């Protein structure tokens, strides 16, 4: 019996983690992810989970502890944001390179400097090449659902990679929304028993983790990692099918909203997609064929599928909640452009940077973008290929 509640994103994720009931968690607080671990540790202190906590002294140690625990042979999770993710940067690569199925909730927050504790995607985008699987979530329900599925994806024998589940800091993590919890038993059965691979605690088969690899082999290891990443989308879809059986909710590699016959479209991640969908509906009522694509599996990026879904549109605006400095386009834009590259006939692509450091993204902004796209459709002319919106000029 699903339980309908009004909770924050953090509370939803904390409960997902409670239901998964990992063996160890090694974590350090940082706004706005702190609440996940605060709620989780109250589960620990009250015997609601079997998880042993390591309250480490920094995020770098948080991921180090996760790596040690995961290599030892058990289910491990943690949560962080922004500077915390940045501090554990080298460990992210080590976790994925060592093929450890760690799950991490990433509550998206802007990177310093300037110091900002509010939501944007610079943290997750900064870590997009670290070899982790990345799932992005629009709201508390998706964050909850993705967190649960993340364990199955990470631990799948064709994958064995760490997974980070993203949700917008404050906007989702701290706002109360309606969502549904699944039953404890259903989640327990869904994730099942953890299967060990080369556990350190197996004394009969001593293993050595973390050798020095020289130029004669490093590239082969990277190739192997790339090949495994390529298996992930299929696994993500398989797990989504299993999840649908227990939840009734469908998940894919991305969400297509009124995209099939769309002429103009927006590509956008996380919570702002929700706001944009309302604007899409408004424009549809006016007879304008607008649509939206919201990536869910961001790494590995499903280039073929996304390209296929967007190729028929005439004009697309990719909205990035993070910038890639250096005069280039935003990170999501670069991936969308790559997905459309193989096609001779493809939509005009423009890029807008929005919502940095928790700057509000309002329906008005979405309408502005859709109007501009409609204009491009009409005239074939692009005003500018990349600009910041919602900023005081």
């Amino acid at each position: 019996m699903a339980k309908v509640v009004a909770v924050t994103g953090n509370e939803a994720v904390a409960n997902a983690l409670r239901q998964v009931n990992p063996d160890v968690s090694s974590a350090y607080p940082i706004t706005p992810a702190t609440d996940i671990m605060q709620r989780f540790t109250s589960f620990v202190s009250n015997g609601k989970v079997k998880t042993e906590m390591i309250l480490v002294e920094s995020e770098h140690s948080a991921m180090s502890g996760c790596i040690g625990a995961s290599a030892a042979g058990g289910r491990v999770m943690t949560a962080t944001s922004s500077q915390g993710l940045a501090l554990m940067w080298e460990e992210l690569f080590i976790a994925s390179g060592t093929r450890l199925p760690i799950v991490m909730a990433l509550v998206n927050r802007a990177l310093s400097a300037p110091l900002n504790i509010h939501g944007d995607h610079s943290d997750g985008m900064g870590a997009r090449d670290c070899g982790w699987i990345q799932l992005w979530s629009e709201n508390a329900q998706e964050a909850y659902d993705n967190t649960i599925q993340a364990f199955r994806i990470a631990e799948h024998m064709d994958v064995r990679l760490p997974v980070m589940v993203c949700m917008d800091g404050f906007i989702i993590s701290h706002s109360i929304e309606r969502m549904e919890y699944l039953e404890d038993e259903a989640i327990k059965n869904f994730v099942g028993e953890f299967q060990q691979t080369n556990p350190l605690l197996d004394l009969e088969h001593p293993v050595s983790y973390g050798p020095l690899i020289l130029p004669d082999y490093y590239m082969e290891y990277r190739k192997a990692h790339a090949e495994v990443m390529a298996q992930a989308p299929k696994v993500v879809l398989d797990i989504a099918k299993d999840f649908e059986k227990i939840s009734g909710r469908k998940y894919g590699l991305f969400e297509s909203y009124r995209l099939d016959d769309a002429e103009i479209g927006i590509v956008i991640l996380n919570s702002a997609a929700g706001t944009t969908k309302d604007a899409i509906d408004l424009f549809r009522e006016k007879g304008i064929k607008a649509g939206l694509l919201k990536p869910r599996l961001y790494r590995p990026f499903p280039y073929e599928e996304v390209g296929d879904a967007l190729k028929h549109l005439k004009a697309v605006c990719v909205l990035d909640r993070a910038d890639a400095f250096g005069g280039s386009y935003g990170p999501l834009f670069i991936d969308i452009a790559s997905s459309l590259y193989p096609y001779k006939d493809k939509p005009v692509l423009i890029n807008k940077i929005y919502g940095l450091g928790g700057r509000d993204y309002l329906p008005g902004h979405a309408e502005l973008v859709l109007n501009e796209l409609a204009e491009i459709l009409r005239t074939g002319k692009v005003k500018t290929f990349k600009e910041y919106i919602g900023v005081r000029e």
Partner: protein
Amino acid sequence: MKLKKWKELTPGAVCTKAGSALEFKTGSWRAFRPRWIEENCIQCLFCWAYCPDMAVKVKDGKMEGFYYDYCKGCGICALECPGKKGKKAIVMEEEGK
């Protein structure tokens, strides 16, 4: 030794063969080699205890010689050897002589 292809590698570069370093013979590093002089040996086993390369052969608690496949010729064993009546039980000699 033939190099493995990417498909043949262990996931995450985990070494699953404990002690496989034994396949790497460091004896070729030597410029000097230790020679055991049995009559001067008091079987103190200091050579075994102090060898950085586990290259001293000890069977049933008795020193029997060296694993020349691994001995790097550092000479610690010879220096530390107490010997008998001032005569060392281990001396270092130039390799290849």
